């Protein structure tokens, strides 16, 4: 077996891979920001103690968490056009899907984060005359967020890995870019190997960052 990587020059990289790489990063960032915002709202709903908020939030989170991501991607790709009455591109559909799907996972992390803040902090907020939303915004959520930062980032690494599953609806992400290049140059073995290397370098270095962050946060406490 002779491996030949020479065809992967800058012009091939920029014409095949770059577009997919940008989409993968875009998808990750959008789903991360959207997922954390939605997830925090879901977590607050679940911790509110009001059944009409707790039940739907819990049902949403548990449903999303028990369906394979590939099926969720397929579901949204099928349902969104049915509901809107017009077709939707795979890329946009993927962004909506990942945001809504990751919200379920981020909400579990934020729930643990909010619960990790001592109750006394909440009472202290009320005691100085803050409302519920002020206490949450100014006292509880900043601490919850900081405590959970390493876990949120780890989830984001998993999210980045999972973006490759848009393969199911044919969206053009980084893996797809490598695959197409491999087919066109008849060098699939090489392109898959390079794709694996790129994913590994990105995920491994991010997880090293998370490790250092974890140590740092532990010292501050």
């Amino acid at each position, binding site marked *: 077996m002779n491996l030949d990587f020479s065809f992967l020059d800058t012009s091939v990289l920029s014409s095949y891979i770059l577009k997919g790489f940008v989409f993968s990063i875009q998808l990750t960032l959008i789903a991360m920001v959207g997922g954390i915002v939605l997830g925090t709202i879901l977590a607050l709903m679940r911790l509110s103690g009001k059944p009409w908020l707790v039940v739907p939030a819990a049902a949403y989170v548990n449903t999303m968490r028990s*369906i394979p991501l590939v099926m969720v991607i397929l579901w949204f790709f*099928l349902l969104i056009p049915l509901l809107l009455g017009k077709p939707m591109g795979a890329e946009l559909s993927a962004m909506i899907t990942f945001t809504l799907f990751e919200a379920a996972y981020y909400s579990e992390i934020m729930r643990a984060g909010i619960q990790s803040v001592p109750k006394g902090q909440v009472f202290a907020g009320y005691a100085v005359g803050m409302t519920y939303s002020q206490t949450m915004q100014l006292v509880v959520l900043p601490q919850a967020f900081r405590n959970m930062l390493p876990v949120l980032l780890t989830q984001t690494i998993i999210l980045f*890995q999972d973006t490759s599953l848009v*393969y199911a609806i044919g969206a053009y992400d980084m893996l797809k870019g490598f695959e197409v290049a491999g087919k066109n140059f008849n060098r699939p073995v090489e392109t*898959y190997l390079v794709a694996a290397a790129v994913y590994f370098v990105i995920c491994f270095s991010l997880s090293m960052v998370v490790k250092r962050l974890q140590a740092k946060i532990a010292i501050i406490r």
Partner: protein
Amino acid sequence: MAAWDWQVFCKDTITGEVAQGCFGQGGDITYLQWMISAWGWTLSVAGLALVVALIVGSLIGVLRTLPNKWLRLFGDAWTELFRNLPLLVQIFLWYHVLPGIYTPLKELPGFLLVVFALGFFTSARISEQVKAGIQSIPKGQRYAGLAMGFTLAQTYRFVLLPMAFRIVLPPLTSESMNIIKNSAVAFAVSVAELTMFAMQAQEETARGVEIYLMVTLLYFISAFSVNRIATFIEAKLRVPGLVGAK
């Protein structure tokens, strides 16, 4: 949205006619039969991969707690490698790359390659839990074993592992539920499992909602059954005297 059409499951996959009694005759199959066989594939892939993952994951997890520096390094490297590659990429590596590098693998059916891909991917997560489980046991127990004259292997076999495995059972349960969900990725290399069925049947019949609903339900049922079985095993194996023991 159009009305429900559940009859789609009784349709013959070739002629598209509704079959009598919902089961095809003379070698033909209906979508219902296809779906049941796809469920079987999902469960087989997930089940076999779980066996691979438990064996390899436990082994690597133990390696990562041994006194030997090189074995620990090997275990750590293994875990980092399989944890930092997307599952889909790993499946492609097993399916497209490894048989090209090591030709005898071409003889193996694609189904087995996916089992190994999914099993090794999950082994990284299991090794992490086994390692944490062993490390959560007080150091004194390891020393006590060695002081009694046990060899290192005996200390693991009789002192550390019986405790560690019972400690890591709950996280292993969620891993076994994850492996059913993750087996859906096998669609990418044309293993005839549930997600593959969902995609193809949706395309052929255009009754996507009904088909996706049934497939999702089957995933629910599978994961829920694993959860029940695991809860039963956990209750049986609980360490007396620990928190949560009856």
